[in-house]
């Protein structure tokens, strides 16, 4: 079992690696040497490093006149990663003006509606958020959209009147798709009568987006699931997200954090920007390190 890296040492290492992997255009790719991309750059912005403002500038610079950010001019708009970009924008001292257009765009997104099916017993009428246009609603893009829109509202971004209705649909979709016993798979909770298993990262992200509904049974059950299985998935990203989520819910995150530090050697070898940035957030012990992931009122 690898030794756990100390918090300060790990932070410096992660920060140094991320600083060194910044591209000449000011953004970050999924790995050092790869083209700058929305998801990876948004995570660097969320990690509150000395260079996070550079990441934020890159995000605002690539925002198109139509309000969307695109990894590639030919590529379909990725709604999940645009939500992540909006979340990153809410970390700025002055939220960029483009956040309003981005929030408005996200509110207009709807996953496909389809007929009831005996294959997946769920409410297929709930049109939450899909990854890209013309596809079905999935847990991750829906959770990122909810989290970003709620944070944007908290940060004073001007929101259209449709906000409440869209948040309601997204929340109902997540509650509808919760696995038996709590937690989330990627989209469905069961297929062909088989109950699907919940996963750590999807559960953590969905919980973050539902923190303002802590009294709802699906949220309570899922939080219990995450607490019990926080260290089950050995990857830097899974452990970092579990740590962030448990901290946001004011739960004991020490086991997940220790496991994340022990996993660090593997994460550093793979050198994936999203994982390293998420680990930096998880390891950051400043009280406001996870503020960007917190929706709803703080506990007294």
């Amino acid at each position, binding site marked *: 079992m690898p030794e756990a890296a100390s918090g300060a040492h790990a932070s410096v290492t992660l920060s140094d690696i991320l600083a060194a992997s910044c591209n000449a255009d000011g953004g970050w*790719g*999924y*790995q050092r040497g*790869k*083209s700058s*991309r929305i*998801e990876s750059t948004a995570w660097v912005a969320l990690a509150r490093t000395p260079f996070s403002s550079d990441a934020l500038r890159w995000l605002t610079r690539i925002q198109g006149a139509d309000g969307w950010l695109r*990894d*590639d001019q*030919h*590529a*379909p708009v*990725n709604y*999940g*990663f645009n939500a992540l970009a909006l979340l990153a924008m809410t970390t700025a001292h002055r939220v960029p003006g483009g956040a309003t257009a981005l929030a408005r765009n996200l509110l207009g997104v709807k996953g496909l509606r*389809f*007929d009831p*099916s*005996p*294959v*997946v017993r769920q409410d297929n009428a709930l049109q939450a958020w*899909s*990854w*890209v246009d*013309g*596809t*079905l609603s*999935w847990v*991750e*893009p829906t959770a990122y959209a909810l989290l970003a829109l709620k944070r944007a509202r908290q940060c004073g971004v001007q929101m259209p009147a449709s906000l409440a209705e869209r948040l309601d649909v997204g929340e109902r979709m997540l509650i509808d798709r919760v696995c038996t016993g709590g937690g989330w798979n*990627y*989209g469905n909770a069961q*297929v*062909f*009568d*088989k109950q699907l*298993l919940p*996963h750590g*990262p999807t559960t953590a992200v969905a919980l973050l987006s539902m923190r303002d509904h802590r009294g709802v049974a699906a949220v309570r059950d899922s939080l219990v699931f995450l607490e019990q299985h926080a260290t089950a*998935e*050995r*990857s*830097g*990203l*899974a452990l970092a997200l579990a740590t962030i989520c448990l901290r946001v819910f004011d739960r004991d995150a020490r086991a997940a954090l220790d496991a994340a530090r022990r*996993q660090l050697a*593997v*994460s550093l*070898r*793979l050198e*994936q920007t999203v*994982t390293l940035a998420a680990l930096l957030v998880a390891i950051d012990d400043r009280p406001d390190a996870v503020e960007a992931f917190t929706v709803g009122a703080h506990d007294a």
Partner: protein
Amino acid sequence: MPDPTRRLGLGRREFLAATAGALVAGACRRRPYDSRQFAHPDRSAVGLFAADEYGDGLADVVYRGLREFAPDVTGRRVLLKPNMVEFERGTAINTHASVVAAAADAFLRLGAAEVIVGEGPGHRRDVEYLLGVTGLFDYLADRRLSFVDLNHDDVVWTKLQSHFTNFAELALPSTLMAADLVVSMPKLKTHHWAVITAGMKNLFGVVPGSIYGWPKNVLHMAGIENSILDLAATIRPQFTIVDGITGMEGDGPIMGQPKHVGTIVMGNDVVAVDATCARVMGINPSRIGYLAEAARFLGNLSESTIDMRGEPLARFASSFALPPSLTGGTAG
């Protein structure tokens, strides 16, 4: 995901026939490819090699198998594309890590300049987790081999070589497009929408989720069989190595049951390999729509045009339980 057999109100046999018929009927109107761009082989060879268990002994099995085909890999960059989609202990979802390692060893022994392993999982996009839990991370680390997450690679916009879908082009991983030799390395499984998943369906994994989302839903919306055909026609993997040691029957590709077969299937014609895999599973390949269509322009399907190497097919012939979506049942 909507269920195509229920939508059509068909049972298994009718579904297989109907999908083949629909593709063929469509193709009769106007072939969605330029046949001059495809050199259909007169004959193909497929090898079935006995391998009863996973482990280090596989390197020799794969090496001996590859030598039967004598692929020219000297000085070339080889991309191994296993099927690694999800993990559940006790199941047989993924190409076993020891098969991937054996293939890497064999290609390097045959003179490849570089072997890269790449996959873009359709469900779990956390490859650090998948590499660790499947054991592939350790195999790669021992051999100092690179892994490329094809979901998050840089992309090259690539014109499709056939047009069964409405896509004119797709963003495909730059590592894939830069490889001299692409080796599809699927698991032998039934598939609840595509009947079987082998060398051709495995190519879904190269479509980058960071561009198209998960679980590569755009391909489902464009038609699974149409997407399989367009990807196979465009990527044209030069070699296929199927992990048929323990396959999956029933509700594949994720929720089925392990099925021991004890073979590794190899060949340089992905259509012929997939047709042979179907026969091993007890399924008539000409009844699988995309295979029947692929046989028109990509490769060979008929037993009369496939030369068998290694062991006879009868040694491994099984009867895989089909997914409930193809049998009219809903039991998991």
